[in-house]
């Protein structure tokens, strides 16, 4: 079980992570989804004790990571596949990890085989491709037969076959009672792997829950030829929205306050012409996520922040 409560971190007064609370149960895979720079890695590093939170706590099986007596037996971590000594071979890297974890050296060969690196085991890690480093990193995380896994962007650099392999591996791990927390900036990746989801944007959690529930949550799409006027109207009515591609705005209606009718009235009162106003038929989560990431680059970020 991985738990965080109100983790908060600022760098030079710029908030990076704000009040992030997570709860990952045994037997589940939690996807930690967010755009690049949303605060995923910093959150994971706080769980790992690498970064000191300004506020908040993080525990694994009820204890802070740094207080675990033999941490690699409890939780395996892959936070940065490039953070391995390039001068050492794959086998040597795993042997060191095995010694630290106090497991039998035979497990090294088993894991090299599992991640398909047996033939490259003597090659220096510096000569590995990113995908190979990810595989080695996953082997390193698994070395102590941990009960939990924390993986930062594990799919990076893996080919489609490798991604499918990793999904099976993680599903298997969770089905045997393991807890998995993995981050990704790719919704489809997370959707295919995780059963729980936490979406983070600008350092704060914007959606969390079971994947099925989140996929069901609905939004309204509203479009105007004059997006600036629409934005002003929504702001005046204190309706949160996210600006998506093609001048389409997405409004979250999970609160129950906003309906298509409310939006139509707001537009009429402010004399804004609407060309589209409908419940999103497409995947609500995708809509939310795309608008959150698109909002990063869109000039009119508006009330979404």
């Amino acid at each position, binding site marked *: 079980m991985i738990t965080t409560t109100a983790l908060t971190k600022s760098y030079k007064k710029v908030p990076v992570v704000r009040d992030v609370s997570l709860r990952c149960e045994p037997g589940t895979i939690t996807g930690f989804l967010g755009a690049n720079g949303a605060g995923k*890695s910093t959150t994971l*590093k706080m769980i*790992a*004790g*690498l*970064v*000191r939170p300004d506020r908040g706590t993080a525990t694994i099986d009820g204890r802070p*990571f*740094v207080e*675990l007596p033999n*941490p*690699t037996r409890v939780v395996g*971590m892959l*936070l*940065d596949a*490039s*953070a*391995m*000594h*390039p*001068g*050492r071979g794959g086998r*040597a890297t795993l042997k*060191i*990890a095995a*010694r*630290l*974890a106090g497991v039998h050296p035979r497990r090294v060969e088993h894991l090299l085989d599992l991640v398909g690196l047996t033939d490259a085991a003597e090659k*220096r890690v510096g000569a590995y491709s990113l995908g190979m480093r990810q595989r080695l990193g996953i082997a*390193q995380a698994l070395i102590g037969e941990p009960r939990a896994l924390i993986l930062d962007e594990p799919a990076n650099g893996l080919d489609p076959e490798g991604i499918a392999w990793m999904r099976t591996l993680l599903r298997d791990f969770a089905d045997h009672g393991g807890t998995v927390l993995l981050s990704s900036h790719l919704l489809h990746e997370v959707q295919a792997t995780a059963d729980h989801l936490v979406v983070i944007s600008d350092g704060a959690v914007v959606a969390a829950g079971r994947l099925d529930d989140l996929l069901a949550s609905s939004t309204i799409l509203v479009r105007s030829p004059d997006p600036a006027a629409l934005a002003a109207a929504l702001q005046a009515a204190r309706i949160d929205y996210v600006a998506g591609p093609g001048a389409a705005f997405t409004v979250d209606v999970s609160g129950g306050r906003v309906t298509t009718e409310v939006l139509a009235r707001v537009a009429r009162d402010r004399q804004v012409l609407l060309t589209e106003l409908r419940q999103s038929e497409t995947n609500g989560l995708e809509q939310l996520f795309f608008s959150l990431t698109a909002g990063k680059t869109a000039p009119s970020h508006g009330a979404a922040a």
Partner: protein
Amino acid sequence: MKATDTRAARWLLALCGLSTVVMMLVAVIVPRSFDQTYASYLRVASIGLIILLPVVAILMFTGEWSQRSIMTTFTQEPRRTRVLNAKLAVSLMMGGVAAVFGGVVAAAGLGLAAASGRPLEANLSVGHVIGYLLYVVLNVLGGVAFGALVQSSAGAIAAIFTINPAVALIGEVSTLVGDWIDTETTWNWVLDNDWGGHVPQILFSIVLWVALPIAAGVARAIRRDVG
């Protein structure tokens, strides 16, 4: 184990040994330049050793920060003081092994010198040997101190090769600096087994160049955000 199992580390240690052997060969070939005593041959070995040994010690402490593998290390052993203690212990062991190696090289040099019919004064006392051992270990610890504090390979190596000579230079002018702060003076007293009236100075320079920076470096490493 992690200090010796990469190509770069092996090269550095080999160079370290090589510099000692070369120094000794110079001493054997050019005998006029120093006293022909057992102690001075040991001294030559130590000078060869400490050219690169502090760099090895620095890299022991900075390498993982620079290579970012510190992130992996700290997720495998999050109690950072244990990691640092292990590095310190390995540095000391390495210093000990290096000192023994230097002793062997010195003995070989003496053997060669004796074989060439050179008169040698067998003046080696226990004090000399202890002084030699301490000198090598102090130089390793000096490297550890820079590495632990600076936590960047380039920065720490640049620092040790500029600050020490700079202090020595100031020591030329100011005897106060020379006698208390310049380790080329104070630690040479240790090497020469010349403790008389120098103990406070020696201790002061050890606190200044070893104890304080290591303490500050450990505190910094424990608090520092990684990654």
